[in-house]
């Protein structure tokens, strides 16, 4: 079991189609700022943030990934060790919504998750600041998808106007922590028992 003094590190990975606002969400959450022109992410980017969750100090490592990339053998390098996965789509882009499930499936395969049914995902519908007539995915439709995928937590955000970003990442952090702690427990439980078979001790009791 990890030492109490050791800081807990939570790895959170953000997935979703190109241009849905993954980098903007990450920047808004970490730095509290928004820019219209973030460059396309090549491979992955990474930002850390220190948080306190219920008096526990944690460092959240947020991994922003390239939306166009469908990694095959490289996916393992990026996804391995994740404690939570954020699936992002753009409420004005139907295709990005339709791809949410494929991103989830791909993550589960590539990250080699031991217990896929209980791995924490959070779904985010971004860009709700747009005019209502440009919005193509209703809340109801998105909620139905999340229910279908195993009652995944769902948030509608605007990285541009900082709407719901904190709230979404608070849930992400809590779920990631829970996942990390459950893994820690299962690691302890499955720790190999050291059996001493050295000649000197073998066959003698400790009395």
């Amino acid at each position, binding site marked *: 079991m990890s030492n109490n003094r050791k800081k807990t*590190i939570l790895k959170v990975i953000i997935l979703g189609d*190109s*241009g849905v606002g993954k980098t903007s969400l990450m920047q808004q959450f970490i730095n509290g700022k928004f*820019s219209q*022109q*973030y*460059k*396309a*992410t*090549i*491979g*992955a*980017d*990474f*930002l*850390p943030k220190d948080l306190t969750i219920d008096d526990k100090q944690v*460092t959240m*490592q947020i991994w922003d990934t*390239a939306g*166009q*990339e*469908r*990694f*095959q*053998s*490289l996916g393992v*390098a*990026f996804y391995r060790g994740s404690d939570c996965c954020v699936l992002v789509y753009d409420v004005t882009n139907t295709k990005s919504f339709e791809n949410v499930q*494929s991103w989830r499936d791909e993550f589960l395969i590539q990250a080699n998750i031991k217990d896929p049914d209980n791995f924490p995902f959070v779904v985010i519908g971004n860009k709700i600041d747009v005019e209502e007539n440009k919005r193509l995915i209703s809340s109801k439709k998105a909620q139905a998808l999340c229910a279908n995928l195993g009652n995944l937590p769902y948030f509608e955000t605007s990285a541009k106007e900082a709407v719901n970003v904190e709230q979404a990442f608070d849930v992400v952090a809590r779920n990631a922590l829970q996942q990390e702690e459950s893994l820690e427990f299962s690691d302890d439980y499955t720790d190999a028992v050291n059996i001493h078979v050295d000649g000197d001790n073998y066959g003698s009791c400790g009395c």
Partner: protein
Amino acid sequence: MSCLQLNKVSKPQGEVELNLGNLRRLREDYTTLRNEFQVPWNELPVDNEYYQTININDDHDITEGVSKKIELSRLRVQHDPLSLDDNTEHGNTITDLQTLETLITDVNRLFPEMPEYFINSLENRKRLIRILFNWWKLTGHSYSQGLHELVGLIFIVFQKECATTESFETVSFTKLENQVIELLDENFLEHDTFNVFNVLIGPVIEKYYKETSLLQETVKFDLRLFETDKFQYHLFKNKLKLDSTIWLIRYFRLLLIREIGVDNSVQLWDKLICFGYIQDHTKIDMTLLLPYLIILLLSMIKSRLIISDYGEALFLLLHYPIEHEGTSKPIGGLSLGASLMRFTFGDDSTKLDSPKNSKVDGGSYALSKKKSTRDFDRTRLEMKLAKKVNDAMKK
């Protein structure tokens, strides 16, 4: 590659002329290609800023050509069972419209630090999209993010040198001057960018844009790092347990544009092209020196990497300090461009793990080749402790 050569022809009278025959032919080829593969702007939503109708000649009389010979034109096969290309996404063929939409997403956010070139110029964005669209059509390679930055850099260089021929119409020039104007003709900016991109990008695609090759190149890089600087290798592999692929993918695919900035990249590309040409003038490979340049970049932040944990090291690698310190401000007393040049083309006294260069980042770390990784670990521990003390004192 020889098709891009502009050979000087010295006339007996001492006159100098450029041989623009190859260039003219390439420009014609691109014009033909552009006419054959129309970008489907018309399939975009009408309110999209890129939307435009296709030029159809309504005056055309369908009976006109009946008695004439029909001129054959090429058509691209949509589903070629023998094709080895990777134009598929989850088993489905990528459509022209999907490619166009992907290109628009990327080109719309190209070089935000220089908005005058693309973000504020719809015309330039359209040109770049046409180039990438036609390149995809011609070669069959799928478009991947990152290629837009490489072609964008070539476009910027050519646009800076462009000449508007209209402004010279009333002036009389010598033949050579006219040839130079023709060479720099703004009307062929798109053509020339396409042709240079098409020639230079081949080895980059082969090595870094295919996943298997990228993994191979990463392994090769690790071996080179081990040979060049065993302590850095030991730090990455054994202490930090860093998977090089995570950060190398961007260094490789963008040829360091993000790490050293556009201006430095232009200077660097000149040298890389020259070096590639010297090695093999039939196929210019700009990537030959790239792994060594990356090793040099690592050496410049070595003292910071040594005292980092996994997260800090990865952050440093993915946000190479040049961006924060500005291109004009030297790192550790050496300008980045000058350092790369000196290392690559000239001063071979540069040894990456020599005590002199390990101090390049202003740190005090120095280890000779004779020392062991154990000594390195001890030094690292001392440096980390010193950092902790410093941090505590500041608080």
